[in-house]
């Protein structure tokens, strides 16, 4: 049975709309809830139609701490700082190490690469306790540095850049050498601009990775002034009884916005970078 070309593929639309709703519904619910009376939410009278005249809850949570947490703007700032630091730091050290491995020959090159590579899939979750000990040794507990520095060492980005750099044609390097470019100049003038799309994609991935950290900040910081937004919101829902639900919901919306915005705005680069990097 052949579908005429001009008739829509209704079945595909139905499936996809269901899929879209599966993700959109909880977020919509939370947004709608954030604009409603907390007591009504407690009673279960939550309407799916947001009350757009009642957005003051957003300024309230942004500027003032609710339920004993830091104000949301502060937690957003910590999250943002952490995400940017992790993304930038990781890209920086990975570009350098991948560049060394790809464009030079030196003793123990393979060893160095393998030392980095082995850590590829060793997530922080499996080395909680010992890493904590190392962190206290460096006096990094309860510091902002402690939030991001240990997370920038990872093999994934190095591996990705190694792949990207290996794909740069030999002739390009040869032409640059004949033009008189040295290693650092070649990195700056040719390699970095040529890899711009990959760097942008990786930045998105790492920004989201940094923003979404939960266990790590939970572990290295007990100082509320270093709470990220993710830590903060989990703290809020932990106290189920005396909860100001509309404030929690508003905070949830604010916690979601930045990484979602980054992903959506840079979608094209990010998707290409993700799929070509991991495979």
């Amino acid at each position, binding site marked *: 049975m052949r579908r005429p070309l001009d008739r829509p593929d209704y079945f595909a639309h139905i499936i996809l709309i269901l899929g879209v709703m599966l993700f959109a519904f909880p977020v919509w619910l939370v947004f709608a809830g954030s604009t409603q009376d907390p007591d009504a939410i407690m009673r279960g009278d939550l309407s799916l139609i947001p009350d757009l005249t009642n957005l003051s809850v957003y300024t309230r949570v942004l500027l003032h701490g609710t339920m004993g947490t830091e104000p949301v703007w502060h937690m957003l700032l910590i999250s943002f700082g952490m995400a940017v630091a992790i993304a930038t730091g990781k890209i920086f050290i990975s570009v350098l190490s991948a560049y060394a491995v790809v464009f030079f020959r030196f003793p123990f090159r393979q060893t160095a690469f393998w030392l980095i590579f082995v850590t590829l899939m060793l997530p922080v979750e499996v080395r909680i306790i010992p890493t904590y000990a190392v962190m206290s040794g460096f006096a990094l507990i309860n510091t902002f540095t402690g939030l991001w520095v240990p997370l920038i060492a990872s093999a994934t980005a190095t591996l990705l850049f190694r792949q990207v750099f290996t794909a740069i*044609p030999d*002739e*390009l390097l*040869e*032409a*640059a*050498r*004949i*033009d*008189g*470019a040295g290693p650092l*100049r070649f990195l700056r*003038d*040719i390699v970095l*601009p*040529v890899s*711009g799309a990959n760097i942008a994609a990786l930045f998105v991935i790492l920004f989201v990775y940094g923003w979404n950290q939960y266990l790590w900040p939970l572990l290295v910081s007990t100082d509320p002034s270093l709470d990220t937004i993710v830590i903060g919101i989990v703290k809020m829902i932990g106290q189920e009884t005396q909860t100001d639900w509309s404030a929690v919901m508003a905070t949830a919306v604010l916690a979601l916005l930045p990484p979602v915005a980054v992903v959506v705005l840079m979608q094209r680069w990010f998707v290409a970078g993700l799929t070509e990097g991991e495979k």
Partner: protein
Amino acid sequence: MATLDIKGLRKSFGATEVLRQIDLSLIDGEMLVIVGASGCGKSTLLRLVAGLEQPTTGRIVIGGRDVTALDPSERDIAMVFQNYALYPHMSVFDNMAYGLRIRGLSRGEIARKVDEAAAMLGLDELLARKPRQLSGGQRQRVAMGRAIVRDPKLFLFDEPLSNLDAKLRVQMRAEIRKLQRRLGVTSLYVTHDQVEAMTLGDRLLILHEGRPAQLATPMEVFECPADTYVAGFVGSPTMNFLPGRLVQDGTAVLLDAGPLVPLLGRRIGGAVTLGIRPEHLTPGAQGLTLTVDLIEPLGSETLVHGRIAGITAESLAVKFAGAVPPLETLTVDVQSGHAHIFDAASGKRINSIG
């Protein structure tokens, strides 16, 4: 502008000898084409001259200056790559200017040189474009322009036309030749295409398994190939080879296939290979009789492929002017004056004495 001298050059990668003993001298303004099958070492030779590889032994002297130990950028050379190797993120102007900037030329001087080269290559209108917005021929021109602006002592071409379609290749070939003549820059040109080699080179260097098989002008190579390899490499379709032996005091060859071919002059030897180009086989009465496999009309001429039963496994080719009616068998004579005689064992050419 300068001379180029290559002395005792050898290159091995691990245990593999890629180049075994190359000696070569180019006079100022000469264009030498290095030609050979893939893997013969021609690209390695070019890359050694460029300084992109270090020779195992030997010296490279450009304009009297020994550059063997120098970095590519210090050799005062320019190279045009097969895939052009344009910097994809830079405009045409920046691509040409990059090397000049690194050398610290002033802004005005760079602009002047780039404009001059662009005008010469007809790139004036394209200076602001990125490489991906250019056609293959235009990219090729930019690659040339990048070489020209540097005003180098030596041009190196690494199969620069292989990525172009046939028509454009012919056109660019002529352009490269005109440009090189006009600028008078000594050049090395690597190609696997024998037509390109014949038309472009002042001289050809035919490389075979890392050794120079012959170094001579195109016509010398065509008329007096130094061995069976060169003979088979140059000319299209390739030369036919027939086994035989020298008889009658070296003045004739008795082919294994039967016929006796008289030669011009006298040669010394025993078992030989007689080489004859397809256009030098003419229909005759009592020559070689071929069983025809295939007739290929090419328009102005026709190729007939055939075998001599029991003697040659591969087809012999015969070239006729004009059309040929369907044939089952064909009898041809070898034109004595065009026969090439090679030693059967070594494949080396045997010239006539006196």
